[in-house]
């Protein structure tokens, strides 16, 4: 998941490139949206409109697909995205306390971005590493066996 600043990148160019790579067919819609999301961090409405135009799919359908899937963001996200595993195995081994501490440190709730656009907090279901739960992933770094006390230290590694 990219967290680069959208500024400096041209959304229309990214869209055109993604459509070119994947091809202009309906079945490529999700891969195309994923690609844009990865490149730009989220998919602004201008991008969705361009996809609709290029693939000749009604705008409403492109919007409806983009909002259906958790991994596609239609809102701008923070520079760093924290994924918190909220599935049962992590939950029973102490995930709840970690979650509370995370929210407390960042002062935001699930799905929100801090006002300084540094952090977005996203809940996800199992990441498949339950053996070391509770698990959080920041950008592409995975932290296992997380305890609430570790949160401030982990967060401090990012600027």
């Amino acid at each position: 998941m990219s967290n680069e600043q959208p500024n400096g990148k041209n959304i229309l160019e990214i869209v055109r490139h993604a459509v070119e790579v994947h091809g202009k067919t309906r079945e490529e819609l999700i891969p195309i949206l994923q690609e844009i999301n990865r490149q730009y961090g989220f998919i602004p409405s201008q991008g969705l409109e361009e996809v609709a135009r290029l693939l000749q799919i009604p705008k409403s359908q492109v919007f409806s697909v983009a909002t259906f899937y958790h991994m596609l963001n239609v809102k701008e996200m923070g520079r760093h995205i924290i994924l918190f595993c909220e599935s049962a195995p992590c939950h029973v081994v102490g995930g709840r306390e970690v979650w509370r501490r995370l929210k407390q440190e960042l002062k935001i709730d699930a799905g929100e971005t801090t006002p300084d656009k540094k952090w977005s907090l996203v809940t996800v279901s199992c990441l498949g590493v339950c053996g070391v739960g509770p698990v959080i992933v920041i950008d592409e770094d995975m932290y296992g066996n997380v305890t609430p006390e570790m949160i401030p230290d982990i967060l401090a590694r990012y600027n």
Partner: protein
Amino acid sequence: MAFYRSHVLVSVDPECVKRGAHQIIDALNDELVAQGLIDEIQVLETSRIGDPVLFGPDIIVYPEGVHYACLSPDDIPYLVEEHFLKGRIVEKFRAQEKKIVDEELGAPKAKEVRVVLRNCGVIDPNNIEDYIAEDGYMALAKVLSDMTPEQVIDEVTRSGLRGRGGAGFLTGRKWQFCRNSQADMKYIVCNADEGDPGAFMNRRVLESDPHSVIEGMIIAAYAIGARQGYIYCRAEYPLAVKTLNIAIKQAREFGFLGENILGTGFSFDLEVRQGAGAFVCGEETALMASIEGRRGEPRPRPPFPAVSGLWGKPTNINNVETYANVPQIILKGADWFASMGTEKSKGTKTFALAGDVKHTGLIEVPLGITLREIVYDVGGGIKDDKGFKAIQTGGPMGGCLPAEFLDLPVDYESLTQAGSIMGSGGMVVMDEETCMVDIARFFMEFTQEESCGKCTPCRIGTRRLLEILTRICEGKGEDGDIERLEELCDQIRTASLCGLGQGAPNPVASTLKYFRHEYEAHIYEKRCPAKVCRALITYEIVPETCTGCTVCARNCPVNAITGERRQPHKIDPDICVRCGICMQVCNFNAIVIN
């Protein structure tokens, strides 16, 4: 594509990650950059290489196949210099060869039998020749040269293999339905969405032995007469996607995929499709909608996919593990497979054992094994020798079974009868400190969020259930809540369109059935017996144990703690927000929950 002279596979098994596998990766990359080798040597993540407890974090360097173990980031500069610059193997970091062979993936524990996981940790997933050396693609050759499609279906049917993705439908029969459908085009789909929390069996197979799944799919394609296949893999598994793509490419190069496979005139090709994070996409009709580029919403069945699936064409959809069993059944025969398991549930099943058990991780056991054997013999018992409270099987649509069921044999029918399900194989063990009302609430939060919203009973019903459960956990439970929950469970179960809604009430219904007293304690006595629900507990300082170190007072976010230095401290329950921080920071265990 870039060409690398060497590949370093770093095990990112959870245990290795815990011991710093990612720091090893960083150190390797940094050092390769520093030494100017980054364009020649590629660092890749892989699943388990050897026994992570013995070796972690460990790496394997190809093409030599040297296995280095117990590395720390400080070892890396020396290792890179010696091995990659000077070409000398560093003996002191080398894993003991014999142990690797004996203990790959952790030696099977008592009562484990490896069929699906047999190659995991043994072969290099990125090298098709490794798979071939383990009799890989022999089943395909046998099928294409000696067997008719009907014979293949017959063999799979006779083996008794049932779908490993949840419902447990007889695989051979499913193939037969699809074979019987007349159409100009048919599809094969592999369901690698594995959305169940706590389940990662499919991931391990895809990352460690992708060819067994691919081979199973090609055999299925031959049996039903399909030309094109898709593996729908969740995007949360980037390594699985990468491994699969490499494997597919190699299979094409070797003539196992594509036109005119092995010169027999049979053609079939495969593509990987990525999910985008929606649990309901594991449901087969939703999954197909997603492949077609639409919202992943289930649709009513019939028509079943075998008649009208992808783009309206007959489609066979099976789980990863189902396909992975197929080559072995062809090679060793239906009777061999049917010799394992119970009357109606044959073969082995992989489970992801998680929660409060000593050995968490993947296991593969013959069906019919009891829950007790799984928890105590394979899992090593409950962590910290606490008491067993419940085992949750089948993921968010499964149920929680209490200790009375420990001797229940694990098979499709027994689990269903007990109020749970086999599901895809997640198993969460819970100790006595788990609040079952909280767990039920928790699963409902999951299904509520994942409901696609297409039908009302599921969309509204799960929200109602969640509201009531939340209220109970917050100490605002009322007389009649239990009955309301039961009624809602019934309505949601019978009126929902797809398996998600139909199964959603299971966690609530099963806990109501087996742990009713906990609901009653919450509602009528405003007490959480497991001391978990925040509104129903208070934090207290034991004066005799408190040393007056002041740490808790300084860390309490709401200043609820008062006391003089070296004097026992006190918590004001009216100010305390029950965040638990004081208890975490107290070094003297002086804070207790009541």
